[in-house]
């Protein structure tokens, strides 16, 4: 009786989503597709695609992006898997610190890392200069491929860590004991049993890292130098000086989406090879980390952590140094912060809060409703909504930015430069992640309780509000914190959509960095870091949890 098809409240919700998604997702995307095959006179042409593939200047951007992204994905796995293994299987002192700091690294805005590494390891960086002057060692340049790889790997390995932590905890200790009794122990067991058992998670983490690294704009533009990647190229085509070429930018976008879609399906295919589920009846017990091996584990975990977190600490330290906007001077003061106040600091914070909470509220409401539609009331149209909502997952942020500008820069609906367009972009960017997690939560809740409520005479709406939503709350909150931080540090679509009215803290930081006002940039970075740190700590204290769903 529950799934009977007739027009009710939920059909209305479905209708609402069809309209919303049609207006704010399909229509802009269609716009990009249309632009990519039109010439300046508005006639059909494939010239932009021909131009892209026939001129190495452009086509190399995609290959560069692929190369660096694949390298980043591999390196994050290499760092993150052992890290997580030690964390999950051994007692390491200060594991709470490891956990919190790792998340902080993952949540920091990537371009702050890039900026800090330039200050540390750039040609004129402190470490570079120290090595050169004191020890006469020339370490070369951090720019280009190397720089992007270092910055992104150090930012993204915590994602692998968090994912793998979950997978490792689900490994049944009986399985490990069984393999030990068959003579498979140590490193051999790690590769043959542990890694195999966690393969679906490894693949899932790889996809997440790939998508984030592939679409990242802030890192390559700051530290990439001559290493041109495609999000930067889209931005250049859109914001370049020589007659902005929307059409060409759109064509690059379409090519990029095809690439990410391929990777997405490849990952799905690979995952289907590992179709099993685990649920530990007896999780693995943590062992003591002793002796030299133990010391090495400590060194590894804390070493990685220190390197990954150093940029943020260094930038925060610099924010208190005196500077004359070009170089840092002796002595300490709050001058950089005073300057930040003049540079729209308060408006940026206010906007960040308004936009952040606004977008977050919409995201939560939407994903709960969509999860309900998809899980409890499957129908072809609800499945279409579900699939559509996944679309932004494979769309780099810069593309969403351009799509929105093209679609809502002209009548009938002019939204460019408004708060609304920022909120729309945040919601679009984040909703695929949020819907995945709410879907998963709802699937774990048995339907029987809701049926009981309805059979006792409660309306469907009442049942949903009073029974279903409260059961989902814990999962929703843990997903919300990630959405929140992702929104607060969003750069790649905001860079195209922002202006002085709807500017966010992240944008102010980026503008200060890109204009080369060193003290100011550090002050904004420090405030942004503080912002994410406080958000996370508040969440951990309020929810009293040590678990964060991704």
């Amino acid at each position, binding site marked *: 009786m529950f799934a009977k098809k007739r027009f009710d409240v939920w059909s209305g919700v479905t209708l609402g989503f069809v309209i919303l998604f049609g207006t704010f997702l399909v229509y802009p995307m269609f716009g990009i597709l249309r632009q990519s095959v039109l010439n300046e006179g508005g006639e059909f042409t494939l010239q932009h695609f021909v131009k892209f593939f026939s*001129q190495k*200047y452009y086509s190399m951007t995609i290959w560069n992006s692929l190369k660096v992204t694949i390298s980043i994905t591999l390196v994050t796995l290499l760092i993150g898997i052992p890290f997580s293994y030690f964390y999950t299987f051994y007692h390491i002192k200060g594991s709470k610190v490891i956990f919190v700091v790792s998340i902080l690294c993952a949540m920091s805005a990537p371009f702050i890392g890039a900026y800090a590494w330039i200050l540390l390891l750039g040609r004129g960086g402190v470490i570079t200069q120290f090595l050169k002057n004191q020890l006469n060692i020339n370490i070369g340049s951090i720019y280009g491929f190397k720089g992007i790889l270092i910055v992104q790997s150090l930012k993204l390995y915590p994602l692998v860590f968090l994912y793998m932590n979950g997978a490792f905890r689900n490994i049944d200790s009986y399985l490990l004991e069984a393999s030990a009794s068959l003579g498979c122990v140590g490193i051999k067991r790690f590769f043959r049993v542990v890694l195999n058992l966690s393969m679906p998670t490894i693949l899932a983490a790889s996809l997440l890292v790939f998508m984030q690294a592939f679409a990242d704009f802030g890192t390559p533009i700051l530290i990439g130098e001559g290493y041109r990647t495609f999000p930067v190229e889209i931005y250049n085509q859109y914001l370049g*000086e020589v007659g*902005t070429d929307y059409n060409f930018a759109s064509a690059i976008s379409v090519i990029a989406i095809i690439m990410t879609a391929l990777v997405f399906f490849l990952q799905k295919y690979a995952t289907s090879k590992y179709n099993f589920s685990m649920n530990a009846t007896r999780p693995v017990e943590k062992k003591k980390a002793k002796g030299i091996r133990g010391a090495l584990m400590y060194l590894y975990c804390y070493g990685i952590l220190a390197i990954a977190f150093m940029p943020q600490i260094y930038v925060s330290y610099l924010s208190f140094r005196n500077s004359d906007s*070009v170089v840092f001077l002796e002595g300490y003061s709050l001058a950089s912060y005073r300057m930040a106040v003049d540079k729209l600091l308060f408006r940026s914070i206010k906007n960040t809060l308004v936009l952040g909470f606004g977008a977050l509220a919409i995201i939560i409401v939407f994903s709960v409703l969509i999860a309900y539609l998809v899980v409890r009331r499957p129908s072809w149209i609800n499945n279409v909504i579900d699939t559509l909502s996944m679309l932004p997952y494979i769309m780099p942020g810069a593309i969403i930015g351009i799509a929105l500008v093209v679609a809502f820069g002209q009548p009938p609906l002019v939204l460019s430069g408004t708060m609304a367009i920022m909120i729309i972009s945040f919601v679009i960017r984040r909703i695929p992640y949020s819907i995945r997690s709410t879907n998963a939560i709802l699937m774990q809740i048995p339907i029987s309780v809701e049926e009981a409520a309805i059979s006792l005479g409660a309306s469907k709406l009442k049942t949903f509000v009073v029974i279903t939503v409260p059961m989902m709350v814990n999962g929703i909150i843990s997903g919300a914190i990630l959405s929140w931080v992702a929104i607060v540090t969003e750069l790649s679509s905001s860079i195209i959509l922002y202006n002085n009215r709807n500017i966010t803290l992240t944008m102010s930081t980026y503008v200060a960095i890109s204009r080369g006002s060193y003290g100011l940039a550090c002050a904004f970075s420090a405030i942004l870091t503080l912002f994410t740190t406080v958000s996370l700590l508040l969440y951990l204290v309020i929810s009293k949890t040590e678990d964060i769903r991704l």
Partner: protein
Amino acid sequence: MKKRIAKISVVLAALLFLVMLPLAAGGGKEEKATDPTAMEKNLVLYSSMTENDLSNLVRLFNKQYPDVKIEIVNGSAGELTSRIRAERNNPQGDLMWGGLSSSDGMVHSDLFEHWLTEYEPDIMPDYRSNNGFYSLDHLSTAVFCVNVELEKELGLNIRGYKDLLDPRLKGKIVMPDPNSSSSGWNNVSNMMAVFGHGTPEVWDYITKFMNNQVVFSTASSVAFKSVDTGEYVVGLTYEDGASTLLKAGSNRIRMVYPEDGASASAFGCALIAGAKNPNAAKAMINYLMSAEGQSELGMALETLRFTNEKAVYETPYLPASSEIKWVTRDNDWLIANKKAVLEQWNKIYANVKK
């Protein structure tokens, strides 16, 4: 029962849709001045100029118009004109200063109000508006910014273009990308003026130049600031940027006017089409073009050459015009061939990068 549910659901659907509308309306509200000639209380200035330029302009302008609150949106020239284009139907800025060069021609004709100040006859004849909507207020000469310590370390004495081909400078020269930065294009234009517009010689030089692994940056400020901090040895940049460092007391850099010849682009300001604060914007453009404004600003900045013949100021951080070897640019050629030049430029770049 069924009817009621249908009703509720339609209302719900409508509500969902309406969630967005108040948000949409929120950003666009602006108070319209009742008197069309009255000075507005706000002014949004889009600018690619340096911090030194902007803080002085705001201070001086506010001395005359204390009630106008100025907000600045900083960015590269390309970035700002693209924003203005994207915001065409809901303009957020009132005027743009800097990055708009006489070599743009009519490219941005639809973005700006076709309006010029009454000071146009006072401007040096070479720099009067050539498109009817750019008010060209200052000159920007292409120069090299050289880090003196690193130069000494490498045993170099950089004087002209051929010195940039020295293998010791491999990977140590920075230049703003002419595709996105007006000062990058300014430097390409100077190469054209020195080696001949579009001649085989100039392309030969550019190929060798790029083969020295020149680094291209998106923002023009990198080409002088990063030279100062020692990231690069040489930056191809512009007078105003590099001399601002000298004014700030840097002894790490020097400015080199290429011995083969230097030339300048005229840069200016323009009123954004549909600006919400047109009167305040016009007042600022008037100020920037008047002899009085240019004199005041010139004295305060000490790093910028202006275009009004009647302006009186000193530029202690710039060499006298007579000490520089000047070459002439063919502006019409540059306007007509900008796209082709950049395409060729990018082709060479792609081949060098492999």
